[in-house]
């Protein structure tokens, strides 16, 4: 079943055309990696999918579970099961980390006609998920990302993912800024969330994340277009040879 179908997506940010016709299909249960050089439009793509303002979709369409994703406001996308793990999770001083997560989960549950979780139910759920991410109790009482290290912020994103249980998870450079131990924890967390009814799209610069989270498909995004797609061996080839040969190959075609 197709979870996400991006068709000929053109996106402009201000005066700059960032995406020049991206097409991509991700099925349920699949993990796709999007790789590419800096400034290729990788982050723009996931931000647009999550509903961030400030981008104009000038052509193309995105269908999510058969519905027009772009017609939904960001909070509705989240309630329908789209989740974005941010590259740079923002700090919200004074707002409790867990309070935000509980508000999010209950908004999702309400949308789906499920009863809201009370504080006790929620706490026991979140404690269980925290074990998975090797997070200690102090996370419960801190402000949203307030004073978190880079690694803590990324772990917190995956914790949120595990609690919100999305159908489509978009991971924006979840590996950046992580040391090897933190990377392993985060990757294990993501792997444990792989399911037949869940699709994961990872944006990354490096092959090393893919050593831990094995993708079904790898795409090279460059200059706002997907130049090449392949299986996990493509990532290894990119690691060895860089991106230039892909660009040249595409230019020659």
């Amino acid at each position, binding site marked *: 079943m197709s979870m996400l179908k991006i068709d000929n997506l053109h996106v402009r940010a201000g005066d700059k055309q960032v995406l020049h016709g991206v097409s991509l299909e991700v099925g349920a249960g699949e993990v796709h990696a999007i790789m590419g050089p800096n400034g290729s439009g990788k982050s723009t793509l996931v931000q647009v999918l999550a509903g961030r*303002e400030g981008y104009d979709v000038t052509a193309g369409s995105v269908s999510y579970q058969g519905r027009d994703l772009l017609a939904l*406001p960001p*909070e509705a996308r989240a309630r329908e099961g789209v989740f974005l793990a941010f590259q740079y999770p923002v700090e*919200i001083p*004074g*707002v409790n980390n867990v309070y*935000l997560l509980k508000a*999010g989960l209950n908004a999702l549950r309400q949308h789906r006609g499920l009863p809201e979780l009370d504080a006790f139910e929620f706490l026991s759920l979140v404690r269980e998920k925290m074990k998975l991410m090797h997070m200690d109790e102090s996370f419960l009482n801190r*402000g949203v990302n307030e004073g978190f290290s880079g690694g803590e912020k990324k772990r917190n994103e995956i914790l949120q993912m595990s609690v919100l249980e999305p159908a489509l998870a978009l991971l924006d450079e979840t590996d950046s800024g992580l040391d090897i131990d933190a990377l392993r924890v985060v990757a294990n967390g993501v792997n444990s969330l792989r399911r037949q009814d869940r699709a994961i799209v990872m944006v990354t610069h490096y092959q090393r994340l893919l050593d831990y989270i094995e993708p079904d498909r790898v795409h090279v995004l460059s200059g706002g277009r997907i130049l090449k797609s392949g299986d996990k061996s493509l990532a290894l080839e990119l690691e060895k040879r860089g991106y230039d040969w892909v660009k040249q190959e595409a230019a020659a075609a």
Partner: protein
Amino acid sequence: MASNPHDESLEALVGQKYRHGFVTDIEADTVPPGLNEDVIRLISRKKEEPQFMLDWRLKSYRHWLTMREPHWAHLRIAPIDYQSISYYSAPKARADGPKSLDEVDPKLLETYDKLGIPLHERAKLAGVAVDAVFDSVSVATTFKERLGKAGVIFCSFSEAVQKHPALVEKYLGTVVPYTDNYFATLNSAVFSDGSFVFVPKGVRCPMELSTYFRINAANTGQFERTLIVAEEGAYVSYLEGCTAPMRDENQLHAAVVELVALENAQIKYSTVQNWYPGDENGKGGIYNFVTKRGECRGASSRISWTQVETGSAITWKYPSCILTGDNSVGEFYSVAVANNYQQADTGTKMIHIGRNTRSTIVSKGISAGHGQNSYRGLVKVLPSAVNARNFTQCDSLLMGDKCGAHTFPYMEVRTPTASVEHEATTSKIGDDQLFYCLSRGISEEDAVNMIVNGFCKVVFKELPMEFAVEAQNLLAVSLEGSVG
């Protein structure tokens, strides 16, 4: 930017109606507008005041005539015609004024009911003693007996003048002298009522004390006066709340609050101010020109001001601490909101005189719509204040792109042993923060409330618990959807 959907929801939600804007139709005994010595004599006579009180009023009035309206604040103020204001308005008494709650005009009680003020049993449940000031007169003070047993005096200012004249005479004007400033001097001449609190030596006041002020009559000013004295080792926590009906003309509110803390005493003074702020075009609203000052007169005493200012067209207010006693502590925690065309120029003064005195200032300004919010603070350390310490933190949050935030910190340090720290930040309610919340499924309205409440958290923590909730709700109403 009209195409930005956030701006549209901003406009729609900023249009949130003021909830306390009704007028109570009640017969009032109102002195005709105008101010002269005869009016002051009339007020004093109506209140059956002793001679010293009248003399003090007249002395103040004569001094006021020599003063000029101050215009140094970062405010645009339409001219005030002091002769068109009525300086005294009281709900008409059936006999000689209410002796107990049963005698209070039911319409008045209804008004307080609408305002959600716990005059009857609700007061008991809440454990809060309430004094309510309606226009110029204090109408009911609950819990007098229980407080009386503890030796605490909590009554209207008028009653204090009659029943405890020696205490009033001893402390009145000792923190805010009658010559202090234009509005305080005017208040000294014409003040109508207010609250009086006296907590004797060693007594911990057994409950939160609370006063609600309401301006009802048209074209009246409200000039209440509050005096709180905590003797050696005493403790009291006091909260005031304020509302007013919606009227097109501006109404003047020029109050004076004096706090005196003797050795080891502690006074916590909290304000939740929700005067009518004017409509979305800036028409009407209360001019809130208030002088609030406390003196830590004794060693190791402590005064804390906590304020949540969401109302008024114009706020001009600097709750201050004079730290006279050695080791005394002054604190100021403030959340000030300026939405629509509201203007707020508020902050504090910390005057360090005693040795090892400490002060903390935390100011959170929120500006939305066309609101202008200024923090103005003075930290003054005199040569005698050896080892004095101050920490100041001023944060401003902007919502939308038509509002403003300004910070005017003044520091005068005259001893090399003092340490003074100042931190200031200005942030826009971040698109990033908002998007982060939305992407977790949280609605825009809830997200804004969450972010703003987070921003104000350190101040709300200082409020008595039952009022912290009220303050949060008030903030939500004042700012609903104000995102740009």
